[in-house]
């Protein structure tokens, strides 16, 4: 399958942080959830993919071409939404921002921009400096969706959005990927959004990729096992990716849930893990409650 993004052996060194040997691929026409805790390296990876910062080692292919700071032709086909939406203040209105941004894209569709503003309940005459964080995110999304982008890269787009619009937003993304040529890389803390829409999940922690796989495979493989703490011996612990110990018992994430449950015995309860469970247990490992 052709890839929208292919990152291979990517590294970036900062004093105090290192993104190391990051590799993953986003097949065309699919949605990838990019998850990890704050400071794990999500934004750094996205900035590298967008060519905003320079890699030390590795390669980044976007839509079949090597991406760099001067790859304007590739960015023409990318809609980018990031956490820190910045628009000029002063007298610039929502409409002005659209007009100004549209000039940089050959395939800018002003009717689509106006339609999205209406759908998102944004007044075109509203000054950008008076917009709330959620409204700025909506404007950013409208800008990203108005130039027929083949790839949407979104860094925490749903943070700051109210729950009602977040659901609408997921529906919009769902509509977008009905076109099989469009792909989405979506970094978020709100993992419930990904349960609905993602085809692939990539987890990053401490600047390293923990896994990057199809969501269904991950959800099939990992299970939550609960049971009494005194039944969890060393052999059982070795089957766990992360364990949460409580006075009443333990809760663990395991890729060998059936074997672990058999070891615990009749008191074991096995249940489906959510993406959040997988992220939290994988990142935290073994702890006494959290």
């Amino acid at each position, binding site marked *: 399958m052709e890839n929208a993004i292919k990152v291979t052996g990517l590294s970036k060194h900062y004093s105090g942080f290192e993104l190391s040997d990051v590799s993953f691929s986003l097949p065309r026409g699919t949605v990838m959830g990019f998850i990890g805790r704050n400071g794990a390296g999500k934004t750094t990876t996205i900035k590298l993919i967008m060519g*905003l910062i320079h890699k030390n080692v590795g390669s980044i292919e976007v839509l079949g071409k090597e991406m760099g700071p*001067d790859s304007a032709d590739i960015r023409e086909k990318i809609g980018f939404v990031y956490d820190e939406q910045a628009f*000029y203040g002063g007298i610039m209105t929502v409409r002005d921002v659209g007009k100004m941004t549209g000039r940089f894209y050959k395939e800018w569709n002003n009717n689509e921009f106006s339609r999205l503003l209406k759908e998102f309940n944004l007044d075109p005459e509203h000054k950008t400096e008076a917009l709330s964080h959620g409204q700025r995110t909506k404007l950013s999304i409208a800008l990203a969706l108005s130039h027929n982008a083949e790839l949407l890269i979104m860094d925490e787009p749903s943070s700051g959005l109210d729950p009602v619009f977040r659901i609408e937003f997921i529906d919009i993304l769902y509509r977008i990927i009905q076109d099989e040529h469009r792909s989405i890389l979506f970094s978020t803390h709100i993992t419930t959004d990904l349960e609905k829409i993602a085809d692939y999940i990539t987890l990053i922690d401490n600047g390293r990729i923990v896994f990057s796989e199809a969501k269904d495979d991950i959800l099939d493989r990992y299970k939550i096992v609960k049971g009494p703490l005194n039944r969890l011996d060393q052999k059982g612990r070795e089957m766990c990716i992360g364990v949460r110990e409580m006075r009443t018992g333990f809760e663990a994430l395991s890729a060998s849930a059936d074997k672990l449950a058999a070891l615990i015995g009749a008191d074991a309860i096995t249940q489906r893990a959510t993406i959040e469970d997988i992220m939290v247990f994988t990142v935290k490992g073994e702890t006494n409650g959290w």
Partner: protein
Amino acid sequence: MAGNIINLIRKDFYTLWSEPGIGVSVFLPVIVLSSVAPAWKSLSLIFLPIFTLSYGLNTFMLEEKYRTERFFSSLAVRRSEIVLSRYFGIAVIMAVHLILAYSANFGFYFAGKLKFQLPPGYFSLVLMVVSLLISISFPVYFKYGVTKAMNVISFGIMAAFYALFFAVFKIPGLFEKVRNFSLEDAYIKVFALTGIAILLFAVSISISTKIYSKRDL
């Protein structure tokens, strides 16, 4: 490429004009002073570089204030286009100034209100002074940003002014020489100075492009 550069210049002009206080303080004095420049003779040589520098400084400053650098760099724009738009923006400001200055001079002269015509030397001196200042300050802005570079640049400008005042008082007839040169119709000197100014500008563009292309945003 040209389309993006024009759009970036338009964006800089628009945001500068729409920013309360800056639009009036940058554009208006340039236009007004340009119109009366012929009457003030070489005094305008001091004002234009100050206003041109102010334009350059403010475009960088607004970018930092609203943190829009990353926004524009994430659009379908090359880093080199962003650099070129800043230099060409300065060139537009200079061109507006010179056109207005020469037109006003021409008008006043034929109306009998002025007794001299603005010589080509004036054009080359303006170009030279502005090019020198921009060629030094822009690569520093692109490398460190205005906030970090401000102290160095302020110190440089202050030092230049002190040096100028010192030279004017210590070297007899220097001011007269500069002023007379600006009003002198010496074509060889004009071409030489214009050539040096353009060369400085070109070298500075090349340095800034290299610096900005390597910068992490």
